């Protein structure tokens, strides 16, 4: 293969990649939330003890309202670590999760309290979640989803969120 041809292939690959990138898509809410959860895994480091497990446990509480969308993560991996989905988890079992998605449940404060200080990332789409001591809140504004982070709770739990993700957060709150 000549060098010229190599460049051409490279160029075409780039072009298709760019064409794919230019997709300012629309999607249903569940799918967007699921994709956010997946992306969060890429930016979060768990302390050694928690990462001895061979899988990343993604848990949801009762009635997570993510429907079938969440199952698209069933065969996904982060690096070489597969994601394991456990839905409708409650009580102490939650403490074995890496990430917990709490949807529209009014006992979020109890869950937050139980998980306080543990290396478990709490995510919710409830309004004001991070102000109640949750770590990552998914918020809907201007017809788009974005997220906010309570950095104090995150730091207290000894998980680490990458700066790239912190930069993209819509709001970073410190605990009151």
């Amino acid at each position: 293969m000549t060098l010229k041809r190599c460049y051409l292939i490279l160029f075409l690959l780039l072009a298709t990649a760019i064409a794919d990138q230019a997709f300012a898509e629309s999607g249903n809410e569940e799918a967007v939330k699921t994709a956010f959860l997946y992306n969060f895994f890429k930016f979060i480091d768990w302390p050694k003890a928690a990462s001895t497990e061979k899988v990343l446990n993604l848990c949801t509480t009762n009635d997570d309202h993510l429907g079938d969308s969440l199952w698209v993560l069933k065969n996904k991996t982060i690096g070489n670590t597969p994601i394991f989905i456990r839905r409708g988890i409650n009580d102490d079992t939650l403490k074995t999760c890496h990430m917990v998605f709490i949807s529209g449940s009014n006992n979020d404060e109890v869950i937050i309290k139980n998980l306080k200080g543990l290396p478990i990332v709490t995510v919710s789409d409830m309004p004001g979640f991070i102000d109640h001591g949750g770590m990552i809140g998914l918020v809907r504004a201007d017809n788009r989803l974005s997220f906010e982070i309570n950095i104090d709770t995150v730091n207290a739990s000894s998980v680490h969120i990458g700066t790239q993700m912190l930069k993209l957060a819509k709001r970073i709150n410190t605990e009151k």
Partner: protein
Amino acid sequence: MRRLITTLILLALSRSVTANDSDTEDLTNLSIEELLNVEVISSSRLGQKTNQAPTSVSILTASDIRTFGWRTLADALNGMRGLFTANDRNYSFLGVRGFEKNDYNSRVLMMIDGLRMNENIYDTGNIAQEFMLDIDLVERIEYIPGSGSTIYGANAFLGFINVITKKGKAINGAQLAGEAGSFDTYKGRVSYGKQFDNGTDILFSASHYDSGGVENLYFPAHDNPASNNGIAHNMDTERADRLFGKVQFEDFTFSGGVVDRYKQVPTASYGQVFNDPDNHSVDRQYFGNINYQKALNDKSSLLLKGFYQGYDYQAKDIYNFNDTRTVSIDKTVGRWFGGEAQITTNVFDRHRLIFGLEYQYDLRQYQVNYDVDPYYQYLNTNRNGHRVEVFAQDDIQILDDLVFSAGLRFDYHHQIQHLPVNPRLGLIWNPLSSTTFKLLYSSTFRAPNAAQMDANLYYFGVNSKLQEEKIKSYESIVEWHSSDGLKLFGSLFYNHMEKLLGYNSDGYVANIDHYDAYGAESEAEKRWDNGRLLKASYTFSFLSDQLKDGARTTGSPQNVFKLHYAEPLFNNYAKLGVENIYIGNRKTEQGNLADAYDLINVNLTSDRLMQGLDVSLGVYNLLDSHYQMLGGGVNNILLMNGREFRVKLQVTF
């Protein structure tokens, strides 16, 4: 070499196919930055990506409503591409792509959560204080102009508007809101919303609106000593009370609402005694609805709906007959109920099928008009009958980047003799993932309403032989999105309307009007991650009146321009929303022109001053222009209010 390119193109195609074709949407290939730009959609009958829908959908959200301080649905609609509102100091009317006839919005389908709101006497689709919902309960507003609306049924003649209510979760607690504005205007609202552990979501809300109105209104047509030199003094009072409730339990949603609105009518357009404070109208409308939505399997879903609705209208008009003050009462009672079944399925590969059946029984269409003393009855009619609508639509994925959408609807309506069959066709081509082209054609009809059938303006008791109005609409659209939140939209449209109802030279209602609308529309919108928004749209339209040799039609502005700008301030502590609405001049019934006008509205909001507190301060019509609207009857042109202020406080706990 060519083979290599072909392979790469196929590779690129296969990538987008895997991204789009799976039954469950998978967006995990998007980066976190891209996810922040994904538009979240949840509309029931759209149920697909907006860039693949055979329509051109415009969407406003609760956040836009808050940012720009819109006080009513009419305010919000006035900010949408291609729409504009008019007002006759009693009702607000919607103009769609150049067509505006003060027709009580009977040619636009108005829906709340997919339930038809046009009542069954005048087909009114209310949008201002007479509208069912408090604007604070609105989550989203979707607007689809003519072409896309065939499957949505009767009244979707020029377009359709679906107002989606908030979930209780969005309120999340008890909420109190109070506002005060110019002309002694006050509004209070109390709401409670919650989503429980088991997923049950509830929302209840009550609100009261009260406006003293403009103290002195000047009407040139009444400028003579006998009628207070054209000054209507304390004649602009308006009140509205609203209740709304919604409970979502598993696959069921129960909702209900009522609005009761009183408005003094200062215009004395049709011979009423000017400046008599008894001239007023009252509109009361209510609905109850049950929805059942169920995924039958992973490829099909079912929607069932049942509803009961009512509308009561009563107007008091004061006339001077033979030097005697005579009170005239105009009263209507509408009651109707019905249901709907809809199945959406993807069981056939590359086909997305929708089947629907709608039924409505007009239980009561009662109209009465009489003078109180001496008693004389001009009108006393009632009707009832069935409406059945069947529709089917198939979105066929012909090629990976090409969708052909074909729809057909069949109607039975007790107020017309024919059984109209109307198609909708669309071709949607996505040559690039960022670019979509659409070619759309549809036709539909509007049955004469009960008032047009029975309440002939000059010949009471005479029933005209009326037929349905017809429209054919053609539209071509191009849409483009960048990866960083810029959207461009362009459209060319042509609407051919015939047999529209008008008054012939003898004063009978008849199917005589015939219009052709030619136009072009464009919009550019950019949203930044920090919440900044810049949006501009321009609509040109020419509505030609074929009954007048193609001359420009009354009430139709040729130029409509809109600019919206939102900016987060002080490190997100506040948000500024600036809106500029330009409406071109319009021809009046008497042949002269109502001036073009420019409205600038500025609104500042903050929810960071105190936990749970949301404050907003708005200035409407900043330039203080008394802009001109078309009146009816003797009032050729009405002058609207100048600058207005509003302060709003909302506490959630």
